[in-house]
C-alpha cells in the first residue's frame, strides 16, 4: 500500500473535507451541547457548574405550550404542503419533458430572491389594506377587510409559501422512479384505481413523503422571521424561542437545549425515512 505522502492530492482533499466537517459542523454542535449543560451567566453567557437545568426548563408548561403550538403550526404547514405537493409532483412526473423543465424552473426561481424579502412581500399581500383584501372587496366578495395578518393562518401561509418546493422536489423524484409497470401489474391483477393508489402508489412513494416531511416540518419550526413578520406575538415557533434566548433573554443554556431538541427530532425523522426505504429494498438515505 502506498503511503499518504505518495498521494498528495488525495491527502489534501481528505484533510480539507475532514477539517471542514470538524471545524464547521462538529465543533459548533459540540459547543451547543456543551452550552446546554452549563449554567446561565449574565456576564459571560455561560459558566460552570454543569447542570441539566436548561432541559428541566424545557418541561416548563409555558415553553411546552409554545413548543406544542409551534409543532401544530409546523404540522399544519407540512400537511398543506403535502396536500398540494403530492398531486403536483405526480402531475409533474406525467407532463412532457419540456414542460417538466419549465415547471421545475418556475419552482426554483423564487429561491433567487431572499426569503426575508419574499416574506415582506407576503405581508403586503395579506395586510388589512393589502392586495388580497382590496381585490376581494373590489370584486364584492367581502364588504370589509378581513384580519389576515398577525394570525396563525398568516404564519402557516408564509411557511407553506417558503417550504413548498422542499416538499415537491423529493416527491417528484419518487414519482419519476415509479415504474408504469407496477401500476399496470396492479390493474392486471384486478385492482381498481383506488386500490392501486392505496396498495402500490402510496407505499412506493412513502420515502419521498417522509423526505418531504423531513425537509418541511423541522425548518417550519425554526423559521423565526416568518412569525416575526406575519404572526404577531402569540404565534411563536421554536425558532423564535431559541432566537429570543440567545439574543434577548441571554439564556444560552436554555436556547442550546431547545435547539438540541430540534436536532433530535430531525434524527428521529431521518431514522424513520431510512426504515421506509429499506422496506422497499432501497439503500438508506
Amino acid at each position, binding site marked *: 500500500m502506498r503511503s499518504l505522502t505518495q498521494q498528495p492530492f488525495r491527502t489534501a482533499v481528505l484533510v480539507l473535507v475532514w477539517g471542514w466537517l470538524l471545524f464547521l459542523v462538529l465543533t459548533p454542535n459540540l459547543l451547543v451541547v456543551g452550552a446546554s449543560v452549563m449554567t446561565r451567566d449574565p456576564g459571560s453567557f455561560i459558566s460552570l457548574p454543569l447542570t441539566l437545568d436548561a432541559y428541566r426548563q424545557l418541561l416548563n408548561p409555558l415553553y411546552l405550550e409554545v413548543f406544542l403550538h409551534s409543532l401544530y403550526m409546523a404540522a399544519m404547514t407540512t400537511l398543506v404542503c403535502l396536500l398540494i405537493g403530492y398531486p403536483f409532483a405526480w402531475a409533474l412526473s406525467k407532463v412532457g419533458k419540456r414542460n417538466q423543465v419549465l415547471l421545475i424552473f418556475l419552482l426554483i426561481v423564487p429561491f433567487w430572491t431572499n426569503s426575508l424579502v419574499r416574506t415582506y412581500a407576503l405581508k403586503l399581500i395579506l395586510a388589512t389594506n393589502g392586495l388580497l383584501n382590496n381585490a376581494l372587496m373590489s370584486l364584492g366578495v367581502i364588504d370589509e377587510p378581513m384580519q389576515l395578518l398577525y394570525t396563525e393562518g398568516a404564519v402557516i401561509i408564509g411557511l407553506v409559501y417558503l417550504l413548498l418546493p422542499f416538499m415537491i422536489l423529493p416527491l417528484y423524484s419518487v414519482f419519476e422512479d415509479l*415504474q408504469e*409497470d*407496477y401500476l*399496470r*401489474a*396492479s*390493474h*392486471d*391483477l*384486478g*385492482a*381498481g384505481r383506488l*386500490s392501486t393508489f392505496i*396498495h*402500490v402508489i402510496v*407505499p*412506493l412513494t412513502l420515502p419521498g413523503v417522509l423526505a418531504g416531511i423531513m425537509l418541511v416540518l423541522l425548518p417550519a419550526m425554526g423559521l423565526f422571521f416568518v412569525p416575526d413578520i406575519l404572526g404577531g406575538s402569540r404565534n411563536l415557533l421554536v425558532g423564535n424561542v431559541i432566537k429570543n434566548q440567545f439574543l434577548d433573554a441571554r439564556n444560552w443554556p436554555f436556547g442550546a437545549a431547545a435547539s438540541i431538541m430540534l436536532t433530535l427530532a430531525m434524527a428521529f425523522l431521518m431514522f424513520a425515512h431510512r426504515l421506509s426505504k429499506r*422496506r*422497499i*429494498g432501497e439503500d438508506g438515505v
Partner: protein
Amino acid sequence: MKQTLLSLSNLTKQFDGKKVLDSLDLEIFDGEFITLLGPSGCGKTTLLRMMAGFEHPDEGSITLGGQDLTHTPPEHRPLNTVFQNYALFPHMSVFDNVAYGLKMEKRPKEEIQQRVEEALAMVQLEDFARRKPHQLSGGQQQRVAIARAVVKRPKMLLLDEPLSALDFKLRRTMQVELKRLQRELGITFVFVTHDQEEALSMSDRVVVLKGGHIQQLGTPREVYERPANLFTARFVGETNFFPGRVDAANGDDTITVDVFGLKRTFRKPDFPVKEGQGLHVLLRPEDIRVLAPEDEDGVAGKIVERNYKGSTLDSVIHLEDGTEVLASEFFDEDDPTFDYRLGEPVKVSWVDGWEWLLPTEPEALPEEEGTDA
C-alpha cells in the same frame, strides 16, 4: 377441435401519426402456446398490451369467448400478464405479491393462503414466501411473476419477453419450465419475443409480425421451412437466397429453373410462374452440400470461413460470382478427418426437394435485424 378463445379483428393503432398496428386480424385458440415474433417496433408489444387492456385500439375489436373486451379495463379482464422486468411489488413479500390478485377479489383468507402456497409450490419457491423480491435472483423473480399471474387462474397468460433479462442457460431452463407449466395448467399462453429460436422451440403457432402486419402465421415448422415471404425467411433462421430464372414450366407440375447455370427441376410453387421469370431459391445452411471440386454437380467456389460448432461444421463459401453461401454440415461418422482448409476449392449443391421458392418482391427490402432494446 380447436376452439377460438380470443379473437382480434381489424385492430389498428397509431402513435404520433405512425401506424403501429394496421387492421390486424388474429384468432387465438383455447389452450395453445402462441408466440408473437418480430423485430423491435413490429407491434408485438402493443398487440399484447391491447389484449391485457393497457392500450386501446383506434379501430377494431377484441372478443374473448364471444364477449366484447375492447373497452374493458385491465382489472376486469380474465387475463394476466407476466411483465418483461417482472414488475414485482418491491415493498411486498413474495407471498403478498402472489396473494395480491386474490386479495383484490376479496377471497377468504384460508383460500388465499392455500392457493398462494399451491402457486409457489408449482414454481418451486415454497420456501421463499417471506422473502422480498430484491432478495431473489432474476430467475426466482421470474418464477414469482409467473406464480402471481397464474394464481388467479386466468383464461389466458400474456408473457411480454419474460426471458430476455435472463442469461443463456437460465433461459433454456425457463423455456422448458414454461412449456411444462402451460401443459399442466392448460392455459392459453401468448408469448412475445424477438428471439426466433425461442419462438420455434416453444410454440404451437408462431405469428411473425412486421410493421403492424402479420407476415406469416403458422406452426414453427411451416414458418421455418415454408416462409411466406423474404422477410420471414430472413428473420427466422439463416437463409441462402440464390437467384433463379424459370427456364421452362413443365406439364407435370414441375418447373425447370436456372440457378448459377445449373438446370434444376423443382416442384411448381403456389405462386404463378412463367418462362423467363426471376425468382428466389431459398436454402437453409443445413440444406447445402459441399462437394469436392471435381464433382460434376454443383457450383464452384472456395471456403472463406470455417466454424467448428461441436455437432456441426459451419462454413462460408464464396462462389465465383461473389455470392456468399452458408453451409452447416453434420460430422460424418465414417470420415473422422472431415474438415476444410481456408481457401480450399469446393463445389456447392443442395439436397433436391429441400429448396423453397419465393417470387422476387417489387421493392428491395432493407436489411433488418431482429434485435430488441
